[in-house]
């Protein structure tokens, strides 16, 4: 069974169709990429999958279950985690608290257990803190745990978002331009991180403009343009379709793509 299936997924805004009848199939495991020029509808697609935007048409299934009508927090509990293109950390909370908040859907202690500090609450909280520290170690932010999240440099904030999403132990992790604003060294480290996450069993769906990053990591690529799926296949297939790439991604990206894999 596929982990994620969208069927005829559509989102219209006044005067434009941001996502236009997209059928997307993401099998369990591996790294899948969605690429396309600015305004192609990639972020809107992520918003539809995570429930922040209501589809005009179409359906979304997660692990065989229809989640189209499920609110965002339920989808999170069912295993959809994500990061944001425009960083959305909780700036006043500490780095560790941000990650702990990411584990919210997994924590079960009842109000009574919390108010009375019953052992169930205490042990759950201890485990959550341990897991959060592990997530921070995974992204290399252990030393920053006690700092206010807003004090982190930009690249670290992006990695914090990944740690926060991973704290929820998602089945599917949506990364919206994780390398944006990173320098080449940071981008290389990020590629290693995404690879480790996928190897540990989380399925990754990735939106990224850095074509070197996408080509080297992805098992499968879906190309969107003007909201429509115009191509999908292995990176090699995307690469070997210069006409498609040039026509739909524009000459600039096409040149970049060739440069990255000349």
């Amino acid at each position, binding site marked *: 069974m596929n982990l994620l299936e969208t069927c005829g997924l559509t989102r219209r805004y006044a005067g434009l169709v941001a996502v236009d009848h997209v059928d997307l199939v993401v099998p369990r495991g591996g790294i899948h990429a969605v690429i396309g020029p600015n305004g192609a509808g990639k972020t809107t697609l992520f918003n539809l999958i995570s429930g922040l935007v209501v589809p005009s048409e179409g359906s979304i299934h997660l692990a065989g279950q229809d989640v189209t009508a499920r*609110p965002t927090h339920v989808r999170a509990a069912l295993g959809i985690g994500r990061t944001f293109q425009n960083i959305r950390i909780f700036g006043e909370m500490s780095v560790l608290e941000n990650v702990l908040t990411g584990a919210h859907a997994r924590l079960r202690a009842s109000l009574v257990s*919390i108010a009375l500090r019953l052992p169930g609450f205490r042990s759950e*909280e201890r485990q959550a803190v341990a897991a959060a520290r592990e997530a921070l170690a995974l992204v290399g932010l252990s030393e920053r745990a006690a700092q206010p999240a807003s004090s982190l440099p930009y690249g670290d904030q992006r990695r914090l978002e990944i740690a926060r999403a991973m704290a929820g132990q998602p089945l599917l992790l949506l990364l919206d331009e994780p390398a944006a604003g990173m320098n080449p060294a940071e981008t290389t480290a990020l590629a290693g991180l995404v690879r480790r996450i996928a190897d540990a069993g989380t399925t990754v769906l990735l939106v990224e403009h850095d074509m070197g990053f996408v080509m080297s990591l992805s098992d499968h690529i879906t190309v969107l343009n003007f909201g429509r799926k115009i191509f999908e296949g292995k990176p090699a297939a995307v690469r070997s379709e210069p006409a498609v790439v040039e026509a739909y991604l524009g000459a600039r990206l096409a040149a970049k793509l060739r440069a990255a894999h000349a």
Partner: protein
Amino acid sequence: MMPAWLASDWTIPAGLDDFLWTYGHLINSLGINGLLALSMYVVLAVGQLSLGQAAFMGLGAYSSVLMTLTLKLPFYVVLPASCLVPVLFALAVGVPTLRLSGVYLAIATIGLGEVLRALYLNVDVFGGALGINGIPERAQTWMIFGMLILALLGLWLVGRSRIGRAMEAMREDATAAAVMGVNVPGYQLGALVASAVLAGIAGCLSAHQSSFIGPNEYGFEPAVTILSFALLGGIGTPVAPVVGAWILTLLPELLRGFSDLRLVFNGLIIVVAVLFLPHGLLGWRMRRRAA
């Protein structure tokens, strides 16, 4: 019902007796306003704005007084039951408005206060403009402060848990909080209900220590005063709004001569707090990091 050690015949030194005689009402007000400040805090803590705290308080006051005078229920039943009617109204206002953006709750709760005021004025059981007199003074100072301490402790403990993290996350970015699995509308409604419970209890306690309640005690003006408690103190911890309430309760006593300017003063506090003290006087956050 009262434990023996709380029964009245323990000896109070004469000086303390005089002090309590003179300042008993003020001391009770500190406790009651502390509870009201917490009722405001719970809503602000999830990033919502309600101006219904005084209305919830009024519902608690009127319903509890009717339970005492008409149904002749004992106070240990009346006090917990005083939150029922406020909670029903919180649900009635919260369910339709919380799905919309934050402003709607503020507007709906202002409306609630005005509708209720008209109701108290025009329906006979509520005593009309004269209000209700002859309420037995059953709320003891220890009960008021017992409730305040209980509320503070509860909010503190809940604040230091996944629920507290979720509340702060919602306040910062409700969208991101939802993506983390926080049931944002659920928490918003829960906070409004909790705030109605606190305000209802405060209303019951206040009515049962002043012998009189009237329709004008629960209108827009007290609603703004309650908001200013939390704005002055801040909402970083539950203690902060209580300190804000105490300052704003004690200041008018110190500035007796200016009591006409009370509303002006509260307005000024709100403006100054919003402009210069975005986190209130007590700006520090609750430490929530486990060791």
